[in-house]
């Protein structure tokens, strides 16, 4: 049944924390995701018209870029987005076949491809655009939180995290148990005021976004001196009283 699993206190809820202050928009997480997952649990991730106009394909992770604010106070925010593994995942409850499910043990939302009929209703029910249709196989696919890495005994322990997290060059992505208030990721979220996306819809996403830090207040003496002041300084240096030095200055200025 595509009912959501029963909740209990202290339930494990694996997910990601993304630091919008650190992300530089390099797309490495999207590339690493595609590379791992096209051979992983939901393989393959097909591309269509890959080398021409109208190219499109299945990606579980995409990097959007936004501008926030105007004028001097504005900044560019790179915004990676993948499945948020919501607590109230409507993509699961709308599924008519039971293909879409949320795991009770760790909260990961997955698709059983052999049950999926490709009705696409889950992609309509997801406000975040996390569902991806594989037009080759006629079934829906999605981010698995690299379930085939995080529990993979064949990998070294430090590699047992999602591909997007391990590849991030600025360490803007964190993986952990957000159901445990004392976990490192939960403490990070609490310290930095991590936020839900579209909280008004009530999906209660697990993944959290850390807002960009505020710029330090503008301090005058730290500011670079304007060019005109430097020129004036050079001018006054030229008004030297000592005739010898004046001669040297003229000589050097020639």
């Amino acid at each position, binding site marked *: 049944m*595509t009912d959501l699993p029963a909740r209990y206190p202290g339930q494990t809820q694996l997910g990601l924390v993304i630091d919008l202050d650190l992300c530089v928009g390099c797309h490495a997480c999207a590339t690493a995701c595609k590379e791992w997952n096209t051979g992983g649990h939901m393989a393959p991730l097909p591309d269509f018209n890959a080398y021409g106009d109208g*190219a499109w394909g299945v990606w579980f992770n995409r990097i959007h870029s936004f501008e926030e604010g*105007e004028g001097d106070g504005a900044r560019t925010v790179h915004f990676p987005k993948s499945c948020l593994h919501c607590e109230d995942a409507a993509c699961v409850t*709308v599924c008519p*076949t039971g293909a879409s499910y949320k795991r009770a043990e760790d909260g990961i939302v997955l698709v059983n491809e052999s049950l999926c009929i490709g009705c696409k209703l889950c992609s309509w*029910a997801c406000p975040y655009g996390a569902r991806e249709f594989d037009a080759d196989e006629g079934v829906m696919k999605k981010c698995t939180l690299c379930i085939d890495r995080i529990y993979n005994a064949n990998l070294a322990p430090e590699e047992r995290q999602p591909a997007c997290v391990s590849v991030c060059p600025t360490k803007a992505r964190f993986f952990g148990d957000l159901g445990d208030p004392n976990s490192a990721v939960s403490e990070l979220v609490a310290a930095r005021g991590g936020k839900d996306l579209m909280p008004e819809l009530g999906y209660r996403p697990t993944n959290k976004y850390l807002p960009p830090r505020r710029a330090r207040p503008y301090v005058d003496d730290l500011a670079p001196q304007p060019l005109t002041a430097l020129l004036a300084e050079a001018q006054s240096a030229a008004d030297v009283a000592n005739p010898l030095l004046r001669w040297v200055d003229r000589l050097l200025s020639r």
Partner: protein
Amino acid sequence: MHPALSIVFFTTASGAGFALLFLLGLAAPLGLLPQSGWFGFVALATAFILAAAGLVSSVFHLGRPERAWRAFSQWRSSWLSREGVMSVLTFVPAAIFGIGWVFFGETGGLIGLCGFLAAICAAVTIACTGMIYASLKPIHQWHNRWVVPNYFMLGLMAGFLLLDLMIRFWVVRPVGTPLLALLTVLAAWWSKEAYWRFVDTNSAPSTVASATALGSRGPVRMLEPPHTQDNYLLQEMGFRIARKHKTRLRLIARITAFLLPALLSLVALLTAGGIGLIAAALAVISAALGLVIERWLFFAEAKHTVTLYYGAVAV
């Protein structure tokens, strides 16, 4: 939302078919319809064919149609599954009712009870179809109180127009159905206008700021999309319709789905025989065209929150 023709046809055809079945199951046992077995055959066959054709069309929308039977399993949580279960369940009492009426000329007693049951099931099926859309929170134009009444009233309107047309082959001057058809067209028109007014004057709570959890520095706008090309999300949910086309299509829908059927129903109400028959037939044709345009707009005008990540500021 991308208006897939298979879904537009599914919701309009099965809406009309189940609504016609609702009317037949309700009115025949009460003796309000011609008792002739042939009338029963024509009317029920029309209802069955419309309902079934719509359901078959919806299967073609699937990525894996051969697995469609699996959709009957999740009725506890999914409105799509409930719709599937109810649509098939409706055919059970409807079949008994049909056999009794067509082959044995019986519309009372146990057969009549099956008629009532079929009517209830058909009404529930239409409500389930509406709930598939009304339950989707990311689409403000669907997740509102007008969608289910709209589906019901528009189906009922199509059902009444069809019923009035068919009755005219058996009764020279029907009394009840033309008046009820006219009133339902007007009621359906009112409910559609109320829906349009709602979507024009209300916007979704979600904005690009809430979608990105940004905005403390000022307005948020997209700088660069993730790709230079479209992707599945934009193909499926990024459908845009020009404002002037929207206005023009709404006008065409108003005229063909409501104004013309209302006027033609009025003519049919006041006339008998050939003229009444032609008017009722034209009303059906006009309404069919109008409902398809209306349903196409229902999809085309719907804006999904995922577009907030691709340049939309509000939905």
